[in-house]
């Protein structure tokens, strides 16, 4: 029986394993050094905040793996001997494979800051990071202040976590406005305001210079490029992540920033594949980056690779881009491509609407000549994935999107509706006379026959 070995029990590896099991009777082994069972990494913050216990973040009950004949091995792979198709496991016996899937995810970036390896300096990626934070910052008495370095999704999550225990947080952000390399200005501004509302000491355009140590080797303060020294007990390093591939340095597998793979998710070595955060496409697909460290893309790669492994060679061919996040109390969803002013395409035009008092806004990107709808960012209004996916496939124009915007609303029942206000604003701005169509179940639930 063919033995499929997967390194990493995150969403990519586990999705691949589940699908391989559905499609075949192959022997499947998942090796992880992090935890015994798969858990949802995105939910780690909720454990610290007391919304859930660790067991709640495990999507499958513990009996699931045995029942589905997926062997779980806890161990750290330190070398891949691809000539003998064997994995060397630290303090344990070797494991041989017929096909190997590397799905080892990411690790927090460190940019060579002095003091970055001191105790109480940590990222927030793994279960171990969570445990460390629980130990380093159990309450505001032991952790009198935390400094977070890096204004991205994990940074703001970490700030939210610490604030839930009333720990003062200073948030150093390199950019002039939060996440403005990704978000258009209006949205980025709104989040800046929201961060301040949560009593987080946001310092824009501020970089870390050095982390100072006390006698015991624990971080005691950070020095910024503005000349400030900020006393603290915990330093969070959240300046992005990069592929967790250091164990592959001398393996013969072609590496860039990540593990180089082709569209079949194959590495340069036969029978070795890489998926998820650690995989790097030779060229980005469409507007996508070569490395996509996103939950959804990890899952999609897992779904795709299972086909290839089980005899149906399939290219990784993701559909329309989508993503989501939550910034403190603000829910964010995106469908299609909306770029920030810093990365905007020359043909990309934006329509931005923001509610007068609530933290609600949308930004819609469209082609300035053809008026083709390119994408939408939405804050505080939930939108229907299926509808936007369909509109992107059908190459709808911005006016069509406006007209049928009510179909796309996914907010709970009885919520205030803002489509009329959005469209009125659009009409005023672009001198159009669009009136919104009533929401139609027929349109929402009918799948169009002709797919492009």
């Amino acid at each position, binding site marked *: 029986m063919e033995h499929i070995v997967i390194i990493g029990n995150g969403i990519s590896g586990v999705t691949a394993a589940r699908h391989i099991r559905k499609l075949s009777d192959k022997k499947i082994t998942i090796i992880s050094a992090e935890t015994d069972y798969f858990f949802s990494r995105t939910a780690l913050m909720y454990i610290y905040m007391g919304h859930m216990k660790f067991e709640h973040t495990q999507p499958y009950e513990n009996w699931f793996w045995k029942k589905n004949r997926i062997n779980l091995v806890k161990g750290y792979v330190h070398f891949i001997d691809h000539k003998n198709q064997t994995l060397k496991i630290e303090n344990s016996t070797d494991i041989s494979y017929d096909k190997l899937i590397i799905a080892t995810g990411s690790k927090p970036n460190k940019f060579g800051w002095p003091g970055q390896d001191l105790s109480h300096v940590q990222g927030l990626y793994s279960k171990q990071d969570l445990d460390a934070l629980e130990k380093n910052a159990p309450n505001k008495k032991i952790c009198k202040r935390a400094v977070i370095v890096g204004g991205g999704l994990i940074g703001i999550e970490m700030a939210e976590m610490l604030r839930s225990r009333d720990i003062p947080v200073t948030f150093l952000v390199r950019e002039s406005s939060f996440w403005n390399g990704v978000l258009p200005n209006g949205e980025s501004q709104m989040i800046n305001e929201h961060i301040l509302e949560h009593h987080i000491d946001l310092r824009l355009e501020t970089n870390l210079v050095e982390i100072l140590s006390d006698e015991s080797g624990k971080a005691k303060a950070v020095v910024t490029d503005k000349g400030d020294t900020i006393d603290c007990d915990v330093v969070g390093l959240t300046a992005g992540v990069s592929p967790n591939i250091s164990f592959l340095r001398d393996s013969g597998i072609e590496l860039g920033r990540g593990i180089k793979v082709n569209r079949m998710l194959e590495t340069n070595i036969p029978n070795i594949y890489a998926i998820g955060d650690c995989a790097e496409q030779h060229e980005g697909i469409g507007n996508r980056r070569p490395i996509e460290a996103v939950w959804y893309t990890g899952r999609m790669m897992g779904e*795709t690779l299972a086909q290839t492994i089980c005899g149906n060679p399939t290219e990784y061919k993701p559909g329309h881009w989508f993503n989501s996040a939550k910034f403190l109390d603000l829910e964010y969803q995106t469908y299609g491509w909306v770029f920030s002013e810093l990365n905007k395409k020359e043909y990309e035009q934006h329509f931005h609407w923001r509610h007068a008092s609530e933290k609600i806004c949308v930004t819609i990107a469209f082609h300035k000549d053809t008026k083709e709808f390119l994408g939408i960012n939405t804050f505080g209004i939930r939108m229907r994935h299926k509808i936007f996916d369909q509109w992107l496939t059908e190459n709808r124009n911005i006016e069509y999107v406006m007209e049928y915007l009510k179909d796309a609303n996914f907010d709970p029942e009885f919520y205030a509706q803002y489509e009329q206000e959005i469209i009125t604003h659009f009409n005023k701005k672009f001198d159009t006379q669009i009136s919104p169509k009533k929401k139609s179940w027929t349109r929402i639930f009918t799948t169009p026959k002709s797919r492009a």
Partner: protein
Amino acid sequence: MKAIQNIGITIFLVGLGFFTALPFLGNFKLDQKGFDELITSQGIKSELFIQNLKSKIVDKDFTGVTSLEPIVDKVITNANTVHSKNKEWSKKVYVSGGDLATTIRKKSGYGFIPENKGLMWFLTFGLGIIGALMFIVPQVITLGKKGIKNDHIYHQSSTNKGWIAWLVFIFLVSFYLILYFKSEYAVNWTYLVDPISVSLSGNLAGHWFVYGFMYCVVMTVMAIRMYIKYRHNMYQMVRTTSVLFFQIVFAFLIPEIMVRLQLSYSKGYDFKNAFPLDYDFFFNWNLKELISSGGLGLFILVWGILLTVVIVPVMVYFFGKRWYCSWVCGCGGLAETLGDPYRQHSSKSLFSWKVERWLIHGVLLFALVMTGFTLYGFFAETGTVLGIKVQSIMNTYSFLIGAIFAGVIGTGFYPIFGNRVWCRFGCPLAAYLGFVQRFKSRFRITTNGGQCISCGNCSTYCEQGIDVRAYAQKGENIVRSSCVGCGVCSAVCPRGVLKLENGPTEGRINPTEVLLGNDVDLMELVNKK
């Protein structure tokens, strides 16, 4: 703010302390006049019983802790033994000792408590309400910006099955045990609400009035907590208002007012309480009363049948069973208000789901078989069907399901097993609505394409123990018979993945393997039916 809340908690505990102490306080002494009234009102003909009981209780002082029930029971047994032996059937005493003890206490209480009903009400209910509100209302500020605030639920003793939760558990279970099985100890509570009862129905309060009044008070106070916690969520605001309205108006006020108006149907009727949750609707004493009560009785009879047979399933077809279970029902109402802090304790394991299906459908079957027996007995005018005494089936159901399951376990176990134990494992109406919801309804919780990140908030906070995530992470709609549509999964989802909605039945159940957002050809290949 913290200080106000702490004072609030203290005041609340003082009120709760008075309330808890009351069953064991006070003095009782029945005089001859009261005793004669009692005998007349109970229609007791046994001189033996009267003499015996008189010598034991009339003009004797009893304190709150002494139970009268064993005394009364003994007198009844003695009298009945003699009457049975002498074949004096008409003299036998059929009143239960517990009920009689309660009635005696109610008639005979004297001293501070019955003489200061208003003050005592204030010291219990009054302080309880004020203290609770002082704790709850500052949450407008302490919870911070509006949004989902579940911080520290698993850090706190009260909501993480710690010692506070166990104390609450003991309190609730004891309360229900007194209510159902030792109502003589509830007599002091009835004095507190006598004035309210008199102003509503014209009668003095019994222990069920205490329960009904308390139910409304607790729901109102905890609804305020819901309004604050979910002030960003219009669905929760509207739903909470609805469930509160139906409890106060339909379950509490209308039945009391019906009694006051001295309508032909002498007891009040809760027009929203549908069979088989209202399990005694077809009991023969109720049918007899309905039929003999003229127009109103017949109307209630027709309404009750129509409610179960037509209105309930048709509404479930259009809106899902939520219209009843989390918008109208009293049990659901308490679960959604008092029970909300405990919703995370419902077990999500596959094992629990199996237990749930056996239990709830077992209870439904029990209710239906029992009703079959009572109806046959009613029309055939017999008390024995297939050699089984109908009364004993009814008693078994009332005791096991009506009292122990729905009351003691259903509510008492909130802090340990979650707030929907009864609704999930026991309610026969929920089982019936569940069939309709699963097989013939427009309701579903839509999963938003591929947006799920498997975080588990939805499953954790599902009070019905549905593993919502198991569906959401597959991009599949949630169509489950047990879903009561409380809307909290949708509320706690950080990525906007879940939406409760009523739409076309076609495509409502949509199992998927590959989720939206991946290669369209792959989706077509794998998801084809």
